[in-house]
């Protein structure tokens, strides 16, 4: 069989076999519309976006880095990289997951509301996770937590029964390990 397993991610068989999660680091010209081009590519071709972050990384050159976490078969992720490379203002697409273990970090702010036992327990667990309290009232805390996405997922699950009322996450920023740029 030489056919690509599932041509379109919209296909009903897509995502059922060998789905992988990859982090793509995309260096772009920071010009109007560039984010729309990237997002439009994902929606137009039915690719997944698990998270997406974007910010300027070189002010003089006006470059931004977009970090995208996506899922799909290895073939479809290779295709996503190539499709991204076709976008004219994109300089470079690096699949950090193929590159080896990249450092991935995310920042979350978690609002927890509660009194008595729950409040004490939330504070204690926040401490255990090294979360910072950035705002407090007599009936709430806002924790700030930075870490790998899994760590944040864990913390959120723990906080849920203790009165989690709101959550804001930045999405993943990532960089390759070692001395060389990716």
């Amino acid at each position, binding site marked *: 069989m*030489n*056919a690509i397993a599932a041509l379109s991610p919209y296909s009903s068989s897509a995502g059922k076999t060998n789905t992988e999660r990859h982090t793509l680091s995309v260096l772009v010209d920071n010009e109007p519309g560039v984010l729309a081009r990237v997002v*439009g590519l994902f929606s137009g071709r039915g690719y997944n976006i698990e998270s997406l972050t974007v910010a300027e990384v070189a002010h003089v050159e006006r470059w931004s880095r977009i970090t995208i976490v996506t899922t799909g078969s290895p073939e479809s992720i290779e*295709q996503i990289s190539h499709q991204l490379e076709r976008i004219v203002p994109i*300089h470079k697409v690096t699949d950090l997951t193929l590159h080896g273990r990249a450092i991935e970090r995310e920042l979350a702010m978690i609002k927890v509301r509660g009194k008595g036992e729950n409040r004490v327990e939330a504070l204690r667990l926040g401490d255990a996770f090294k979360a910072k309290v950035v705002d407090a009232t007599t009936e709430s805390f806002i924790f700030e937590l930075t870490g790998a996405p899994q760590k944040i997922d864990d913390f959120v699950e723990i906080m849920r029964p203790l009165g989690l009322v709101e959550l804001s996450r930045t999405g993943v920023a990532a960089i390759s390990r070692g001395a060389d740029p990716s």
Partner: protein
Amino acid sequence: MSKQMTGAEMVVQALRDQGVDTLFGYPGGAVLPIYDALFQQDSVKHVLVRHEQGAAHAAEGYARSTGKVGVLLVTSGPGATNAITGLTDALMDSIPLVCLTGQVPTHLIGSDAFQECDTVGITRHCTKHNYLVRSIEDLPRILHEAFYVARSGRPGPVVIDLPKDVQFATGVYTMQKNVQHKTYQPRLKGDMAKVREAVEMMAAAKRPVFYTGGGVINSGPQASELLRELVALTGFPVTSTLMGLGAYPASGENWLGMLGMHGTYEANHTMHDCDLMIAVGARFDDRITGRLDAFSPGSKKIHIDIDPSSINKNVLIDLGIIGDCAHVLEDMVRLWRSEAKKPDAAALKDWWKQIDKWRERKSLGFRNSADVIKPQHAVQRLYELTKDRDTYITTEVGQHQMWAAQHYHFEQPNRWMTSGGLGTMGYGLPAAVGVQMAHKDALVIDIAGEASILMNIQEMSTAKQYRLPVKIFILNNSYMGMVRQWQELLHGGRYSESYSDALPDFVKLAEAYGAHGIRCEDPADLDRAIQEMIDYPGAVIFDCVVAKEENCFPMIPSGKAHNEMILLDLADDAGIEMGSIIDEKGKMLV
């Protein structure tokens, strides 16, 4: 050269500096300054179309027949949205266009002003790249960069959206030759180690085939020459997609004809049974592959393409070479020669013996008639009577398009203009206008259907205005023939809305547009009528009344493999119920 000028003047100056001699357009409020600048010069010729879709297809026809970038100029709002189909068509077929659109002045953008639309937003998905020019300082760079982006790498359409205040503003224009994009620099030369590997695979192949596509045409005439050389050196059979016809001459002895859904029996069987496929500038489109999991199951596949995303998109490739067709073919030819490679002559001889057996099926055959003109026969006669002339063929979309591809034969690249990827009815007439503008003395024929032609019939006025002697050869079967054929195959012959009712009298229609009309219904009169069309010095609409219910064969039914073609004799004689050929899964496909 640096000079103070207005934005509108910069546009015209940049066109001149890019060597543009012709552009196609339609004026409106948001482009009046550019039209004023055009009025005051005569080095760039403006062709007034009658609908902006026509401007886009005309620019495509111009581009495809010359190898240059096609240019169109339209106003904001409806001007831009009308051009969308043509832009999408150019994107799908990789045709270099620069589309200049007017826009409301910058201070009104986002206010839902009259004739405002979000042109860059709308066209982001149907262009290779687009620009909204926010200030006069950016304009000279963007104008030249747009031409670079349109023609470099895999070509495509580029939109420049020009707010009216930017057209009026004054700035410094600097002559910029050879502008490139600072980061967009596609790779032209293939990896030599891979080219070497490809040549080794070719020398070892027992049942090879070249599968070539529009990329060979887009790469320039040099690529076609090199392909011919490589085919001659190796003795391998060669087939082509709809888009690639003419790269290898139809009279060449290694030619198998077109492949794919309506390709020849020999081309598709060769693809199915080959042990080495060398894909050059082709993209494994669904019209080509048929059922993917049964596509050429026993072959190694080499794929040469300038667009890395084409490789491994639909079909897994054993050896992908990223690069421009001409560059890679040149390296292949050089290596093959310098290393004195020889094909496996004995194996190749057996392979050709097998291919000749497939050829004996004469899959393009049809039953001719003395009473009614068969559409295939009409195209064959058209070919015979025009082949020795300087001829360019455009088409609309449908059965007539496939019959044209099967029965009109091309010896040279850039002679065949058809909407392949998008399949746009209404493409052929405006494309013919664009071709004729570029080749004033050539014979330009739009092989059309009676339904398609009505989609952009207004461009007859353009032909009249510029005295363009385009010939519209309508295969009139009173049906949207391909729709009717599919309804026969898939929906029990319930011809829902596919009958071309209330057709105009095409002879009178021609006369109304100041052209010449010919109707022919008698096979015995066909040659004379075609000759009359050729000899007439102006535009002609030829209403060729053909057999109504002729189907286009051979055909790979949707959901079937290359070796499961329907041939005419099978369809006619074996008494096979046409509605039973395509299974439920196939019915879901397009």
